[in-house]
């Protein structure tokens, strides 16, 4: 029996990698990362200039965006191949098809619980697409090399780079690292784009469900002439609803961006706190894994809940009208 004892060698690989990182971090002292809100430009000249919108730069979130889309497409291709293969043989999904089926069945059950079975097929694709895409955008940020490998620029107000083998001589100017790849959800353009898609499609689904009566939520004039005082109150509440639709976009975008940006700042600060001890940032990275998954879930879940609210009228009249 003792000869069959398992030898878990993989955990030693992790330990060796941590020690190697510790030693290498002492030899090649990293340049302190620069914290910027906007994505940095890889090339100073704009790629092309659009007539109204303005110049279009190659920022370092664009390669990551392509990378994210590629990863999602590859997963979609292999899932489709696996599922069609199982559909031809014995209808038993195996491998990645099985995994994705379990994952999306869980999400579909959640959607059906919140929206009811009538609107679940309409709402589910938006929920699942946004959640899956944001999940990969958040998790790809954690791959080593993101936000750490890039070009060093000499800037007057930069960070010192002594002791690193790349720059043996002392220079009077500091350096700023412009990484090649920066997590795509640390770009306000990306989060705003998804937030606008989500809120706009919420309105579209609301109109699909209730027709033009959906807009009576925003311009509520139905009760204005029956009961003058409370009718005016309802109208003001409707205006507040209009404002809250726009604040939804802002809070969607800044929730994701703020959480992911806080992750970058936290890693950068913790890496700079203890100098050469480079194990602490990996602990923060573990926390980032948690935050990324939670934020993707929250983004998709909120989209789904708002869409479910849009399909249900806020008064009881519509439900009775449908019942007759």
């Amino acid at each position: 029996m003792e000869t069959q004892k398992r030898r878990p060698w993989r955990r030693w690989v992790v330990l060796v990698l941590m020690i190697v990182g510790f030693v290498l971090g002492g030899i090649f002292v990293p340049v302190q990362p620069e914290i910027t809100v906007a994505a940095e430009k890889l090339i100073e000249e704009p790629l092309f200039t659009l007539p109204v919108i303005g110049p279009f730069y190659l920022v370092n979130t664009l390669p990551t965006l392509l990378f994210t889309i590629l990863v999602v497409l590859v997963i979609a291709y292999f899932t489709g191949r696996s599922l069609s293969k199982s559909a031809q043989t014995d209808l038993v999904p195996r491998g990645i098809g099985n995994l994705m089926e379990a994952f999306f069945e869980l999400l579909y059950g959640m959607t059906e619980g919140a929206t009811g079975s009538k609107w679940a097929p309409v709402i589910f694709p938006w929920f699942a697409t946004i959640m899956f895409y944001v999940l990969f955008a958040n998790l790809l940020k954690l791959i080593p090399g993101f936000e750490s490998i890039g070009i060093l620029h000499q800037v007057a107000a930069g960070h010192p780079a002594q002791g690193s083998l790349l720059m043996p001589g002392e220079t009077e100017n500091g350096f700023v690292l412009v990484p090649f790849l920066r997590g795509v959800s640390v770009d306000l353009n990306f989060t705003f784009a998804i937030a606008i898609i989500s809120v706009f499609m919420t309105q579209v689904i609301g109109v699909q469900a209730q027709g033009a009566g959906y807009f009576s939520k925003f311009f509520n004039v139905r009760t204005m002439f029956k009961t003058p005082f409370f009718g005016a109150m309802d109208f003001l509440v409707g205006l507040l609803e209009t404002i809250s639709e726009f604040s939804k976009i802002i809070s969607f975008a800044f929730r994701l961006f703020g959480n992911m940006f806080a992750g970058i700042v936290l890693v950068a600060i913790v890496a700079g706190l203890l100098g050469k001890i480079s194990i602490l940032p990996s602990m923060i990275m573990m926390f980032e894994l948690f935050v990324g998954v939670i934020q993707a879930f929250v983004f998709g879940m909120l989209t789904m809940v708002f869409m479910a609210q849009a399909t249900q009228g806020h008064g009881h009249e519509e439900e009775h009208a449908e019942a007759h």
Partner: protein
Amino acid sequence: MEGNILDAARFVGAGLAMIGAAGGGVGIGLSVQGALTGMARNPDTYGNLLTNMILGIAFSEAIAIYCMVIAFLMLFKVV
């Protein structure tokens, strides 16, 4: 000691703006506490409570996010 007093005021202002995040934290804590109590009493309502809890968390988190936006505006000289 050198530097611009406006820069110092920006940092202080950003720090003060983030005090508002305490309210969001209290709100999130209260809503999770209520949802957990409900789940412990009646585990069958887990899914329904989870959805509503996340919705409530999102609304109270939005307040903290507005504070963060103001802090960003001050910190990075957007306005």
